[in-house]
C-alpha cells in the first residue's frame, strides 16, 4: 500500500497559505463590478481548487489508497447527479422556475 509518506509540517502550512490566498481572491473578485458577469465562472474553479487542496493534502487522498478516493468521489458524483436531476425536472416541469 502506498500510504506511508505524508507531507512535512512546512508543506501543510504552505497549502494553508495557498488556501488563504484563494479565499482572499474569491472575496476580491466578488467586489469588482466589471467581473460581475463572469462571477460564476471565476468562483467555481477557485472553489474546486480549495476543495481539492483540502481533500488531497489535508485528508491525504493524494497519498492514501485509491479505494478511499473512489469511495469519496462516488458520493460527490451521486450528489451532483441529484442536483442535476432536480434542476432538469424543475426546468422542464414547472413554468415559473
Amino acid at each position, binding site marked *: 500500500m502506498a500510504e506511508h509518506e505524508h507531507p512535512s509540517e512546512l508543506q501543510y502550512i504552505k497549502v494553508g497559505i495557498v488556501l488563504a490566498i484563494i479565499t482572499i481572491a*474569491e*472575496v476580491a473578485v466578488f467586489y469588482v463590478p466589471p467581473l460581475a458577469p463572469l462571477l460564476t465562472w471565476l468562483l467555481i474553479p*477557485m472553489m474546486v481548487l480549495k476543495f481539492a487542496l483540502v481533500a488531497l493534502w489535508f485528508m491525504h487522498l493524494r497519498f492514501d489508497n485509491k479505494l478511499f478516493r473512489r*469511495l469519496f468521489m462516488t458520493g460527490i458524483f*451521486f*450528489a451532483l447527479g*441529484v442536483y442535476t436531476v432536480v434542476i432538469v425536472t424543475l426546468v422542464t416541469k414547472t413554468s415559473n422556475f
Partner: protein
Amino acid sequence: MATEAHAVGQAHEEHHTSTGLSNIKMAMWAFLGSECLFFGALISTYLIYSRPSRILPGTPMPSDIYDIPYTSVSSFVLLMSSVTMVLALAAAQRGEIPKMRLWLLATATLGMTFIGGQIYEFTTFAHEGLKLSTSTFGTSFFVLTGFHGAHVTVGILMLLSLVGLSHVGRLEQKDAYKVEMIGLYWHFVDIVWVVIFTVVYLMT
C-alpha cells in the same frame, strides 16, 4: 515537492482485513461519501428555493441580508482550523502528545469561533426579518447552514474528547488513527463550508 516519511504509528500498519486497509478508515470514507449526498441535497434545495421568483414579496432577499466581509472572516477561520487539525495529526503520529493537544485545542477554539459567528449571524438575520418560517429561502438557508453548524459542533465535541483522552493517558502515538479519523470528519465539514461559502454567499 519532496515529501518526508514520518513515523506514523499504528494507523499505517498492515491491517489484517480482506482489503488490507483499515476497516475504520474505510467506514469513515463511506460515511463521508454519504454525507456528500446529504449536503448535496440541501445545497440543491437552497439553490432552488432562493431564486428571486420563489421568494415572497416583502420578505428579505439573499442580497439584502448577507454580510460578505463578516462571513469571509468566518470562512477564513474555519479554513485555518483545517491547518491546525492536520498539524495535530502530524504531532500525534510523531508521538508529540503535548504538541498534539495544543493543536487540537487550537482547532476546537477556531471551530467555536466559527459557531459563535454563525449564532450571531442567525440572530442578526432574525432581527432583520428572516426566520425559519419567513419564506422558502429562509427555511432552506437555515436548514442548510444549521445542519452544517451542527456538524461543526459535533466535531468540536470530538476534538475536546480527544484532548480529554490525552490528559488521562488514553491517547498515545499508537492511537494516532483516532486523531486521523476525527481529522477526516473535521476536514470534511471544512470543505462543505468551502462549497456553501461560494455557492450560497458569493454566487448570490
